[in-house]
């Protein structure tokens, strides 16, 4: 796969690993948060942890839009899907996300709700055209990456004058989440950020400037291939070593400073900021999510179906808030691997395979065991 395989090269990885070992100052610890689940996945999938020095620790951030979707929004979607006239279209990742009391879309589907997995927003449009007597609702989730496809779909629905189509909007924004982590009450222990890859293809690198400038945190935008990650880590180490805190762009082949202007324009024309939005594991964050503009109210499922806002408290035993701030690790949670597993996730970090806890469970667990054996 061109533009992917080259960045998975083992020989180059060995070189980069050597460079990281050489550059990392053994006298200090480097704690970098990779914001994105895509980065988390790359770390786990390719076993990057094995190639980093012990004093370079990666902290898995909240960067999976599925994981951060709170139980209340899942409950709302289930209630919507249970309406007899509604067919709810969802991305497959959402099916197992827990609502309150063990509920999930997968279970709601099993119990009779009409829920369809779609691959693309365009599939939802096709479904609405094919089923004029049903109300097709698209469960829109995702960061800045996934919002433009929703915008394209809304334009198509308008053009086709679909009266049986609407959107349950849950799009969220990455910079406010980074801000929330940095502004956390308990001081966080993060020396720099691996910045989003595909979010940045849309919004560019500029929105991260404040974190470097105002918070003094180095940020390196990085692709999702393992060499991208390693190069970004090396760049972060160099910034730390140099005492710099800048926004750098490792993922230059796909990310520019100002992003995809067409996509940004489309999104701005269709969506506007919500005052507040609840994030699983992070709590309520101001101006961190989007809703449809009043001009598109007729396509807004929350209005069409007068959906009541549901808020469900996170499980207090879940350590996600601390894990997402770099203060704890999955194994520090007493529910990890017992009550909380990928089959029965409790907190945001276990929900998708890219959550910190799920990634550790799925790919990394054996290292705890190895460490225990070693000690």
């Amino acid at each position, binding site marked *: *796969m*061109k*533009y*992917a395989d*080259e*960045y998975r090269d083992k020989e*180059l990885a*060995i*070189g*980069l690993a*050597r*460079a990281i070992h*050489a*550059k990392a100052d053994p006298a200090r610890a480097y704690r970098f948060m990779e914001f*994105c*689940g*895509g980065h988390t996945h790359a770390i786990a999938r390719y076993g990057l942890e094995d190639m980093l020095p012990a004093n370079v620790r990666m902290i898995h951030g909240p*960067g*999976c*839009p599925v994981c951060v979707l709170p139980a209340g929004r899942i409950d709302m979607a289930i209630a919507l899907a249970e309406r007899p006239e509604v067919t709810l279209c969802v*991305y497959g990742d959402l099916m197992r996300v827990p609502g309150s009391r063990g509920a999930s879309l997968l279970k709601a589907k099993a119990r009779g709700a009409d829920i369809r997995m779609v*691959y*693309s*927003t*365009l*599939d939802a449009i096709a479904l609405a055209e094919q089923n004029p007597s049903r109300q097709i609702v698209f469960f829109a989730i*995702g*960061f800045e*990456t*996934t919002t*433009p*496809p929703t915008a*394209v779909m809304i*334009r198509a629905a308008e053009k086709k004058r679909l009266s049986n189509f609407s959107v349950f909007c849950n799009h969220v924004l990455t910079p406010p989440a980074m801000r929330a982590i940095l502004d956390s009450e308990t001081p966080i222990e993060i020396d720099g950020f691996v910045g*989003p*890859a*595909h*979010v940045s*293809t*849309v919004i560019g690198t500029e929105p991260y400037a404040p974190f470097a400038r105002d918070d003094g945190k180095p940020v390196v935008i990085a692709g*999702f291939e393992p*060499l*991208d990650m390693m*190069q970004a880590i*090396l760049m972060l180490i160099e910034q730390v070593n140099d005492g710099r805190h800048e926004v750098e762009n*490792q*993922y*230059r*082949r*796909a*990310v520019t400073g100002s992003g*995809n*202007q*067409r*996509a940004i324009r*489309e999104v701005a024309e269709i969506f506007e900021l919500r005052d507040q939005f609840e994030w699983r594991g992070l709590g309520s964050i101001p101006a961190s999510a989007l809703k449809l503009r009043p001009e598109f109210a007729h396509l807004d499922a929350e209005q069409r179906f007068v959906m009541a806002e549901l808020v469900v408290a996170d499980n207090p035993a879940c350590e996600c808030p601390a894990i997402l701030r770099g203060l704890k690790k999955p194994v520090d949670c007493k529910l990890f691997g017992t009550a909380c597993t990928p089959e029965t996730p409790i907190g945001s970090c276990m929900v998708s395979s*890219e959550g910190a806890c799920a990634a550790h469970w799925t790919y990394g667990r054996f290292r705890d065991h190895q460490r225990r054996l070693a000690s």
Partner: protein
Amino acid sequence: MCLAIPAEVIKLLPDDMAIVSIDGVSKEVSVALIEEIAIGDYVILHVGHALTKIDPEEARETLDLLRQMGAAVAEVAP
């Protein structure tokens, strides 16, 4: 997050659609979000939509840089 992969545009279709190819797999996708698209372009594909074009120059430079970074240490390291 945001599963997305590089794909080559092999055919342009009406209504801002295109066929892309990934190592012997081809799929119809939307290119509505891309300003100017041409056959042979590589795009980043996400949920059936092309998000951005890949810049082949930058890609090559990044790889060169990667090589240099590894090689540099290899030379200096004992």
